[in-house]
């Protein structure tokens, strides 16, 4: 494999992400921002999937981050991104640290459904304690500040800030996946017996992965709250969790760029499908998922990999002749 190919592709993608908003209309910048914060939450879901751990409740962390912002704005008037992003990360982390104590004991369908259960408890609580949470009306968030300066209202500020955060998150996930814990996580999917007989605590591996995923969910929720400007209990609803899983599968969880690719296609597909087929867009999404699972279970990332592999081989063949 061409060693330069990977960083080059990443550079091209980064350059595109930086330049694209300058040439597209404002509403597309909004969608691109959504792509970014969605991909951050999906990265958490994807990391768990690497270990064979499917969650139908990751909106728990997304909503935790979003409501951490909501309460900060409502009670303390804090709008500062440099405070709220760490706060969202921390609240996601703390939530994951508590819920994860139980979750690290489970796998497969129990893991998936227990996560769902916890997210629905939060959803219920957000509805029920309406005098605190605003109930079904949710909470208005207002505009964020960065170092005390209000971000421009046209959406560029949120986009570039989200892009920077997404960059940091990608680096963190990359490091995690390259670490012993990351490899043991993949091994978990493969052979738990061997891990146990290596003297490594499988629960520790799951717990640490879960902490990472929860933290990313919290960060994603913060960015979502400001980008959308309004938070509602549905942020914790199972449909939101399902969306994360959908994007993870669409993009492919086998590679780092999968969540971003998945979120890109998902958001634009949803936008255009609901524009041109207002009554059938869910059906369109269903068909896309069907095609992915039937023909490309590795997701868009796998398609990209195959194309890249073929191009690489052609390039090498050219050098040889």
């Amino acid at each position, binding site marked *: 494999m061409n060693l330069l190919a990977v960083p080059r592709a990443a550079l091209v993608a980064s350059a595109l992400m930086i330049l694209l908003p300058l040439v597209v209309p404002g509403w597309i910048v909004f969608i691109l921002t959504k792509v970014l914060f969605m991909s951050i939450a999906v990265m958490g879901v994807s990391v768990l999937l690497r270990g064979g751990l499917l969650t139908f409740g990751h909106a728990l962390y997304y909503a935790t981050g979003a409501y951490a912002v909501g309460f900060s704005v409502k009670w303390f008037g804090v709008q500062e991104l440099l405070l709220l992003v760490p706060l969202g990360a921390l609240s996601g982390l703390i939530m994951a640290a508590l819920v994860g104590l139980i979750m690290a004991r489970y796998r497969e369908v129990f893991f998936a459904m227990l996560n769902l259960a916890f997210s629905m408890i939060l959803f219920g609580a957000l509805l029920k304690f309406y005098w605190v949470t605003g109930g079904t009306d949710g909470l208005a968030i207002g505009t964020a500040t960065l170092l005390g300066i209000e971000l421009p209202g046209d959406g560029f500020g949120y986009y570039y800030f989200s892009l920077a955060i997404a960059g940091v998150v990608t680096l963190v996930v990359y*490091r995690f996946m390259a670490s012993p814990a990351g*490899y*043991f996580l*993949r*091994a978990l999917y493969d*052979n738990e017996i061997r891990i146990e*007989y*290596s*003297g490594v605590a499988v629960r520790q591996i799951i717990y640490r992965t879960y902490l990472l995923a929860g933290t990313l969910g919290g960060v994603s929720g913060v960015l979502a709250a400001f980008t959308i400007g309004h938070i509602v209990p549905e942020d914790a609803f199972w449909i939101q969790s399902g969306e994360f899983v959908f994007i993870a599968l669409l993009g492919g969880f086998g590679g780092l760029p999968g969540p971003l690719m998945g979120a890109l296609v998902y958001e634009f597909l949803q936008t255009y499908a609901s524009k041109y087929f207002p009554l059938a867009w869910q059906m369109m999404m269903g068909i896309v998922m069907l095609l992915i699972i039937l023909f490309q279970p590795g997701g868009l990332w796998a398609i990209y990999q195959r194309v890249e592999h073929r191009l690489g081989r052609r390039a090498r063949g050219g050098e040889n002749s």
Partner: protein
Amino acid sequence: MAKIPEKTSILRTVDVNRSFGMVTAADNLNIEVGQGELVGIVGANGSGKTTFLNLITGYLRPESGRIQVMGRDTIGLPPRLVTKLGVARSFQIPQLYTNMSVLEGMLLSLAATSGKGTGIWKPLYRESWTAEGLDTLERFGLASYANRPVSELPEGGRKLLDIALSFALKPKLLLMDEPTSGVSIEDKFQVMDTLAKVLQEGEITTIFVEHDMDVIQRYSRRVLVFETGRVIADGEPERVMADPEVRKAVLGRV
């Protein structure tokens, strides 16, 4: 009974019993294995050989008795903690990370044994681990497969890798469950030659379950013969196998 060598005791079992319903799988086992020994275990199917390994590693809990590894009681500890005490095992059916490269599996063993298996920030590929992993693969004759997926290994290679993964844990006691089963007769001695050499160099105390008496006689100086959960003979393979009762138990004929 054979003399117990006057070396440090690595493994000691005292009156260990375990049954599964009506079947007695471990019947008053009193076994002591000293530092540096290479002990073979033979016995018919169902005679309690694998149960013995499972009891030592903490996978099964005895109903009564004591098990000590280097003087420490291990009963009640899960396999993970017994492994941490220095007991590693390989399996009859190799337990490998089939979606990874051969080297990556080795690196995971090295990470585990250095206590950094749950590290989340520094990479798995570290110079010192890579060098050591490659060196171990070299010794096991698997160096040429280092960067190939585990799924490409032939059966003999899978067996060796399974043992290499345990070996890389730097155990004080290595348990091997039929290291040559599934390996062709031609390759059997080659696999065992490789293993015997590596284990001797590493001065690793080893217990291995084996069906093939030729293998036992050639490589170990002590054999335990199991029958219905009991040790019916313990000693030098030539002497033990001269006993008609043992021959009957192991071979089914005198």
